[in-house]
């Protein structure tokens, strides 16, 4: 990612990355915590014949948070695998139009996912579904999971905004045709 030429535009991009990073850290530190518990379980079972109880239940509620947290970072850093095939064939202007169109599709999919997953979280809350052994409620982690997609969708709105500005020639983006 090249640095943006304008100070005013650098700030929000930085903020976006910082937020995504922060979320990602929360999720992965949770995952490392889960790995730590697994280590304790392995040692306990191996050395003392007393496995930890309910580690699967903890994983079931922790994993959605750990994995969901990585989604906004994928969107912000454009980490998704994209085949840039037409780039070589198209002019700058057509490329920008394509970016806008692709951005709209991505936004629709992310928003749709946030919506469907949010409804799923609500349904889990009403039904009070819980894990097998420890009876941990499932709705909080799925609310978080849906929330991560919502954040990703919001980031995508900003990214799409940038693409639109480039296309309409407003903003400095139009200049960086390298």
């Amino acid at each position: 990612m090249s640095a943006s030429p304008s100070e005013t535009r650098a700030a929000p991009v930085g903020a976006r990355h910082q937020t995504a990073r922060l979320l990602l850290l929360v999720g992965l530190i949770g995952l490392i915590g889960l790995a730590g518990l697994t280590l304790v379980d392995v040692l306990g079972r191996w050395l003392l014949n007393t496995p930890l109880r309910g580690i699967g239940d903890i994983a079931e509620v922790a994993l959605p948070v750990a994995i969901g947290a990585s989604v906004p970072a994928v969107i912000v850093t454009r980490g998704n695998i994209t085949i840039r095939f037409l780039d070589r064939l198209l002019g700058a202007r057509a490329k920008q139009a394509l970016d806008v169109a692709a951005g709209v599709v991505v936004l629709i999919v992310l928003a749709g996912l946030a919506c469907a997953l949010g409804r799923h979280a609500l349904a889990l809350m009403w039904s009070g579904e819980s894990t097998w052994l420890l009876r941990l409620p499932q709705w909080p982690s799925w609310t978080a999971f849906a929330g991560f997609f919502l954040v990703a969708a919001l980031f995508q709105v900003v990214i799409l905004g940038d693409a639109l500005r480039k296309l309409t020639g407003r903003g400095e983006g139009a200049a960086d045709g390298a």
Partner: protein
Amino acid sequence: MGLESFAIGLAVMFGLIYLQIPIAIAMLATGFGGYALLVGMTPAVSTLVSAIDASVTSQSLAVVPLFLLMGSFASISGLATDLYRLSERMIGHRRGGLLHATIAGCAVFGAICGSSVATAATFGRVAMPEMATRGYALSLAGGTIAAAGTLGALIPPSVILVIYAIMTESFILDLFVAAVGPAVLAVALQMLTLAIVTARHPELAPPGDRYSRADRLEALVGAAPTLVFLLVIIGGMYGGVFTVNEAAAVGAILSIVFALLRGRLTWARFLDCLVEAGRNTGMIYLIIFGAEMMSYFVTVTGAPQTFTAFIEATGWPPLMIVAAFVLMYVVLGSVFDTIAAMLITLPFVLPVIESLGYDVVWWGIVTVAVVELGMITPPIGMNIFVLNAVAPQAGLPALFRGVLPFVLSDMVRIVLIVLFPVISLALLG
């Protein structure tokens, strides 16, 4: 009628992908849309949510981020440098010695790191500068690292093998065990290829220094912690202390502790590792969501049954059908993402492979070998791109030229493991 929907769906998906929509999003949109049109909106939402739920809460799949974490922390903790130094001192004085050392280093590193790109990137940083200063041809050096990087996925643990195991409901450990023979073959063939290339063009890879026994011992002592770390993970996993799931968790924790003990873990590096592992995690899960939705859509079109029946009706000998699939993967692998290519085709290919009486585990090994070949072939070869980012002075065309001998030797290996399933299955008993 089903077939028409399938054909339209496939066309829409490829259309979206070539309109530069990320592969995962294109599969999600097409799979969901097609399913909703064929079955209805409520079932489509329900299938989408349960497919995501099942993937996210799968503890088997959770080994993927854990293996990614382990690989990230292993690469900053100087582990690769240790391994490279050790193998350089042992075999570096021969013709093309640093290249042989790179292959050996990648092979051992591959036993900790589950991904081909990460292995290529790590050794690109470790080995490329040294080879450049010793006057090695950058094209061959970069090509060797890109090819040896695929050992990261061919040698267990392997993220792709984990995903294949989960999608086909086979045992992860079976695939890991079956991968050992072909992995040994891969290392042997790569080294043989290198020997042939450097024999014909010695100027591409001048021999390095010969080291004294004391120097070698020093490198061995220096690499000892790394080797112990390796032994704990591999011994624990194959020796019955823990399952693959647990090995991934233990490995992730140990690699962090390891980096910490060696003084390599600054706060900034810790964050970088997490970001790298996290991004790849998010990317892989999004692709899995997309591929799951796509495969449910494909299933309701009824195309897989039609396809299986069609294949059976051709009356082709099984080996020819297998060869056709391999060819299809080579083509797909060069224009498509590795994991996505495998996932999108499994609903079709697996029923045929099973109906032909082939072993699902063996087919996993073949699939991974073929899609990894795609990582080093043009136009889209992820490992080559990675090397190009590490050492841009060589240039993409030169790198693709440098990797060409390995592409050929990989093809030979694929033919061998297809013709002789025993290479994969012998250790399984």
